[in-house]
């Protein structure tokens, strides 16, 4: 299972990358895509300009097997949505850490985020 060391994670299997220019990029982890299997649809309930709240749903992901919420990893304002990933969710299966979904900024720090080691421990227990 791929868990890059330079990212942060939620207990609900989103990843977040903090960029040098002050944004937080969010996507679904390798473990999430592996568990869900072939992704069919992404339905985001947020658009650029909307406010999202950490640990609350900002959309849904549907695979053949199941549907699950996508939670915001941090609170803040949506700066952009990656339409490429939304239109082609299979890109998350192919490259989970490249296919980001939502760009948030400005954002508030979230003390509940896990570092790579903590996230690896979490998924090892599942």
């Amino acid at each position, binding site marked *: 299972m791929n868990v890059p060391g330079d990212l942060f994670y939620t207990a609900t299997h989103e990843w977040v990358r903090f960029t040098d220019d002050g944004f937080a990029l969010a996507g679904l982890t390798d473990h999430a895509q592996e568990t869900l*299997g*072939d992704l*069919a*649809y992404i*339905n985001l309930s947020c658009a650029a300009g909307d406010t999202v709240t950490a640990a609350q749903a900002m959309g*849904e992901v*549907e695979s*053949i*097997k199941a*549907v699950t919420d996508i939670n915001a990893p941090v609170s803040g304002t949506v700066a952009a949505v990656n339409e490429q990933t939304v239109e082609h969710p299979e890109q998350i299966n192919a490259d989970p850490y490249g296919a980001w979904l939502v760009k948030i900024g400005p954002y508030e720090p979230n003390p509940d985020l896990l570092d790579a080691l903590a996230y690896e421990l979490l998924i090892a227990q599942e």
Partner: protein
Amino acid sequence: MEKKTALYDAHLRAKGKMVPFAGYLLPVSYEAGIAAEHMAVRTAAGLFDVSHMGEVLLSGSDAFANLQNLLTNNFSGMADGQIRYSPMCNTEGGTVDDLLVYRKDKNLYEIVLNAANREKDIAWIQKQLKGHFALTDISESTSQIAIQGPRSAEILAALADSPLSVKHYTFTENIGVAGARCLVSRTGYTGEDGFELYMENQSAPLVWDTLTAAGRNAGLLPCGLGARDTLRLEAAMPLYGHELDEDITPLEAGLGRFVRMDKDAFIGKEALLSAGIPRRGRIGLEILDRGIARAGDKVILDGREIGYVTSGTMAPYLGKAIAMALIESGGAADGDELGVDCRGRMLRARVTALPFYKAAKK
């Protein structure tokens, strides 16, 4: 604690994602994933462990008369080596299970049951049987492997020591495959040509490995429960617990051709007759919006709930989300647009003729 089939180790070696299902640990998918496994069956071949299915033998001079009473289909005029599908009704006309009957001899039939219903079915059958008969559950000692897809006949024929059945819904006993003696039927649950092989547990791992290796160049993949479900759904085959249950009659489920009202009597016949025209019917839906309708979602027409989704998925071969639903009779016709309440989001859906997918005739 879930049971393991004789192929459990083979699934682990093939990196199967094991899940509990009907009391067994079975793979939901392997490394390729549900969509790739599904496509392998539509275009080449797929291999399934269906050892969880129940098998019982009904024998004796009254075996035939008992089948006629227990099941809704008609078993007269059946020859040895033929197979018939049938619902089994309760006295209210609801469905106890749907099953296959293999005629081995005029006084010997093998009945293949759904795994989750096995104990319930056997108790029900035992209670109804009359006259001279014996009922033997051979499920625990029997493994079942299905090979399905357009290339399954060539892969299996190359390994079999005698000719395979040519006609759909027929079987041949005592075919040697990888040293095992198998009952091989031309049946399946995918909408493709294919075979189901029944054998003793100890023979199953070698048969599985031999078929896997022999089929590799033809594009055969091992397939899990996930692909089994998406394949049967595209082919609009009913799944017990979804399209059928104790409260759904086979007539409501659209299985009227397997309910032979011209038979003298069978359990459930009077209830079905007195109910008259079924008040509900099974329909197909194509989801027009971005979303997948799932079992239990409400079907809405003009703001009114007219039924519910029994199964739904993203259909890998068709490339769209499809569903089956049970709705009020006459509630909608092919081509009509309905709504499906998908966890609070209303998805537009179009009523579509079943099956969604039919294999091209060869």
